[in-house]
């Protein structure tokens, strides 16, 4: 049952891309204002699951979802829910930094602008950049192209862009996989700072990262027919030190994957 400590909850969630089943029977509750990591080998459906949480899969022709994702007690796949509103309240950061070819300012202002919140833009942008620990680095080049920033700065800009909408949940799809170790640590620090106020779900194939940043961890695998299933889900410390499932143990001890 969704309660105050649950932010998002998948219930018997299944996902198909045409005839291919990508996810089978996923049920999990994402805790509010904590960091939940989804780990697992390549192709196990981690990213597909993440994209179910803000209906990004809708954009892929031929994709179908069964089951429910509850957000504030409401199924985001219900007929009367507009995916635009879902994405407005549940932000997403992508694997490769994808700033728009616009100025730093316009990147952050983009979300508020398209959603009709164009008042106090300067304030919103500055606040978001500060929250993303990027303000000091870009305050003198707000109106220069975002493409000139470094990879790590671009990724923090993408986080700032998401924060500008004050989302309740931030989904991160391997946000550090294109970054160097220093930039990665900065993003991880940032995630820890943000965790108090936002529910963060991060997909990562870096187990150390999952162990470092997350409160809860979910281990996924694919079955014989390549459909992704949730093998084990629990507090990170427990999952990494005392896994219940043999497959989880094999994976985290590096025996496969």
């Amino acid at each position, binding site marked *: 049952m969704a309660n105050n400590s649950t932010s998002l909850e998948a219930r018997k969630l299944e996902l198909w891309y045409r005839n291919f089943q990508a996810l089978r029977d996923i049920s999990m509750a994402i805790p509010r204002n904590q960091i939940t990591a989804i780990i697992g080998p390549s192709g196990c459906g981690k990213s597909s699951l993440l994209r179910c949480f803000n209906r990004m899969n809708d954009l892929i022709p031929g994709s179908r979802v069964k089951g429910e994702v509850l957000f504030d007690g409401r199924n985001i796949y219900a007929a009367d829910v507009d995916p635009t509103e879902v994405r407005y309240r549940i932000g997403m950061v992508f694997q490769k930094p994808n700033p728009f070819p616009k100025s730093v300012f316009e990147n952050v202002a*983009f979300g508020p602008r*398209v959603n009709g919140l164009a008042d106090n833009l300067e304030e919103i942008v500055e606040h978001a950049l500060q929250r993303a620990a990027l303000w000091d680095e870009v305050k003198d080049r707000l109106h220069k192209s975002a493409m000139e920033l470094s990879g790590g700065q671009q990724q923090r800009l993408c986080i700032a*862009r998401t924060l500008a909408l004050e989302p309740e949940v931030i989904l991160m799809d391997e946000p550090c996989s294109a970054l160097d170790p220093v930039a990665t640590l900065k993003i991880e620090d940032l995630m820890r700072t943000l965790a108090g106020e936002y529910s963060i779900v991060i997909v990562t194939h870096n187990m150390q990262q999952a162990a470092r940043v997350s409160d809860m961890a979910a281990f996924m695998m694919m079955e014989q027919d390549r459909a992704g299933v949730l093998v084990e889900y629990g507090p990170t410390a427990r999952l990494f030190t005392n896994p219940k499932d043999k497959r989880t143990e094999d994976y985290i001890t590096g025996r496969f994957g």
Partner: protein
Amino acid sequence: MRNGSAFKRHLKLRKIKGGLFSTLFLGSTLVGTLVLIVLLADVLRDSAGWLDWQFLTSYPSRKPEEAGLLSAFFGSLWVMMFTALFSFPVGIGTAIYLEEYAPDNRLIRLIQMNISNLAGVPSIVYGLLGLSLFVQALALGRSILAGAMTLTLMSLPVIIIAAQEAIRSVPEAHRLGAFALGSTRWQVVRRIVLPSAFPGVLTGTILAMSRAIGEAAPIIAISALVYLTYIPTNPLDRFTVLPIQIFNWVSRPQEDFQHLAAAGIIVLLVVLLSMNAVAIFLRNRYQKRTEE
């Protein structure tokens, strides 16, 4: 060292091959350039002394020394203006629909295939279509409007394909980023896709226009009229265009008319090159603006 001499012998051969091919490619580049230079030199020599103010400001005449291309120049201007007006919005609209909205089904693939094929249809065929559809069925007569609509049909496939390519080159990651921030599809198109694709769309359109302004065949089918001694003042007026005027002069036996044709070609080339220059200028300016 392993068998150094065999390596060295082989290296020499490889270097000779490399040099040979680069010379060959330089040669093929020069063929095109040289032909163009010879052509320009020839036309310039032929037109010497004929391209003057009188030529630019006179109507066609039986007497070569009094003839000019004023009516043809304004005819081309009128026709191009309307062609651009019609083909730009329709072309870009089609490209946006096909790339951003259309589902992937058999009908859409059929339409796509047709557009690609239409780009290769000879222009005279468009002229005949224009004659029966716009001139006769829609009763527009042999007017500027009928000519512009015919050239629009001819330019559309090229513009659509160029615009589609420009739209396709916008990274998918930018679209997804915008969707993830709660954009509707139209906002993604308006704020992400179009600004990035615009320079490419513009270049494609202007190049299609340059092709259209040099077309004689479809206009001959619509309006064979050459002896026009007034400047058209409204879109339903009869008209003539530069290539037809040039064609008419070239086909006359007297040598003086050949000089007039050469002078006409220079004017047409200047118009063409200015259009391309505008395309490059606009593209550069817009590119800078979107990157800021």
